[in-house]
């Protein structure tokens, strides 16, 4: 029973982890149909923000929950302003340009901080025990953060003026523009918010994984397939894909090993896309957020 509880916690954490690393990407993809290939580097920048600011004496909570999203959100706004806005409607070029951006950030951070792991910080929670098994308290905290984050995005999209405008733009950009909404502004807001969410996730994961200039590559594979398998509905897509992929990943990892878990996740996603090319929300929960 204890084993079962510990395993369940692990699987739920795996799912929460997928939600965290992909929600920023999902917001941008769902709203703008743009896949941001520099997503992994936004996570990485969030991590570096936390490390640098805690090392210079900022409280770790402030660094993780406020500074990381703020800094990366600002970077996102700048990127949108300088680069992305010239490429709307040119999806392939956007992919390529954001990939260039990804390399640019890796190179920049490596030049500044060196190629090695920056000083890591320890998770601000101790271990918790489930019977004879123990689990990291920080992982439980992250599960709650993921749930709160999904709820926040839901409330933002469903019940605020901004959310209404955003959903309108998402469904019919021309119509929204005809009604006097500046879709350009909506897109740049979206990109900023998506980047901020990525920064938050990167900051929160920094105590567990440490930070490297190239750490983005670890995240993006999983984030991409979660978002693409989920489809264009931001929340329903991310949630359903995370549950499915994270669940399978957790179970296979437990039975065979973490390497096979990752392979299983990928194979499942490829088969899923063969059956539902528009992602899960292209077939089910079509009208959801």
């Amino acid at each position, binding site marked *: 029973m204890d084993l079962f509880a510990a395993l369940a916690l692990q699987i739920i954490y795996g799912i929460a982890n997928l939600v965290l690393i992909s929600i920023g990407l999902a917001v941008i993809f769902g709203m703008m149909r743009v896949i941001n290939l520099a997503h992994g580097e936004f996570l990485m920048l969030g991590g570096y923000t936390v490390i640098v600011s805690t090392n210079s004496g900022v409280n770790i909570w402030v660094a993780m929950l406020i500074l990381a999203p703020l800094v990366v959100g600002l970077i996102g706004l700048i990127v949108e302003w300088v680069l992305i806005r010239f490429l709307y409607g040119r999806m392939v070029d956007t992919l390529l340009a954001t990939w260039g951006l990804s390399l640019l950030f890796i190179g920049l951070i*490596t030049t500044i901080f060196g190629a090695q792991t920056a000083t890591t910080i320890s998770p601000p929670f101790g271990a918790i025990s489930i019977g004879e098994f123990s689990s990291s308290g920080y992982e439980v905290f992250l599960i709650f953060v993921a749930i709160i984050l999904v709820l926040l995005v839901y409330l933002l999209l469903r019940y605020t003026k901004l959310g209404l405008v955003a959903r309108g733009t998402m469904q019919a950009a021309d119509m929204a523009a005809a009604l006097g909404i500046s879709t350009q502004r909506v897109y740049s807001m979206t990109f900023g918010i998506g980047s901020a969410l990525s920064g938050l996730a990167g900051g929160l994961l920094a105590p567990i994984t440490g930070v490297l*200039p190239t750490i983005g590559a670890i995240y*993006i594979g999983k984030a991409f397939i979660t978002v693409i398998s989920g489809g264009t509905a931001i929340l329903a897509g991310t949630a359903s894909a995370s549950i499915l992929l994270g669940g399978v990943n957790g179970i296979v990892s437990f039975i065979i090993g973490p*390497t096979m878990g*990752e392979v299983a996740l990928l194979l499942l996603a490829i088969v899923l*896309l063969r059956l539902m*090319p528009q992602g899960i929300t292209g077939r089910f929960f079509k009208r959801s957020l």
Partner: protein
Amino acid sequence: MKRSRDTNALISIGIVGLIILFGAPQTLDLFEIISLTTAVSLAILALSLGLIWGFGGILCFGQTAFFGIGAYAYAIAALNFGGSTSAIVLAILVAAAAAAILGYFMFYGRLSDVYLAVITLTVTLILYSVIRRTSGPEYKIGIAKLGGFNGINVPPINYPWDANQFLFPEQVFYVAMVSLLGAYFLCVWLTKSHFGRVCISIRENEIRSELLGYDIRLYKLGMFTVGGAIAGLAGVMFANSIGRITPDVYNLYNAALAIIWVIIGGRGTLIGPILGALVLFYLTSFLGRQAVVNINFFLGLVLIIFVLVVPKGIVPSLVQLWDRRRSRRMTARSAKRIRRRGRSRFKEATFEE
């Protein structure tokens, strides 16, 4: 007119290729020959991506996956067979099969460009993390240990069916260069064949091609498989020039590099990606030696600038520039001739572009 220029270009490319093939081993020292072999093997990879992206319209961000699969398959097979002859053939077949299987899921699922790009990239990244974790002695195929992040030592190519006679680096260079030339002219022939023309029409307009009765899924799959096979060949040559194959072939940097070669050289040409790979190979190894700015920064900048400013790539832009200048010169000349004949009759005619 157009045709003859194409033929002229092909002939000159062939001549330059032959000059390099026979001239390089005479003039360069051993180290330069080995690094040129590496550059040539990367050029074959660039060619494969140039073929499927520029002519098939297939945006594959993970062409290095098949490159790496080819290299690994060659190393494993050569160790197990104790000779390289059938290992080369097997490696190309394995890479082609991998491309065919992945392609089946993508093209028959009718995934769009962006999804395709992301899936292929993800496959590459997952391969990277999986192969990196195979350092334990239990991970082996036949007698070949996969070796995790240390990789596999690759046995050198030997004379066909004579496993005791290894090729020297110069001879490996001949093999690589002949492979490049062979692959290049194969691709040229392919793009001019019926199959290639259908692929180009699919690139231009999928729906119209489908309405004309072509099974676009099958054509794309065919193109992708050929691309995978050529990338596998490139992997074999790469493994031989370096002498060791590590999981780093699957990393994000190399995947990006392959894309950058094609972007710089030019989509829709076959020589462009090859030149892009060769130029960038020497440029990155030159820039890698300075320690001021990390090489990724430079590559990222190049990619962004090309996407924004020179989206066609260098070779097509140069051709366009050349054509424009030539046509301007021609119009200027004919305008002069007409002026001489008598202004009054052609008063209203303008020869501005």
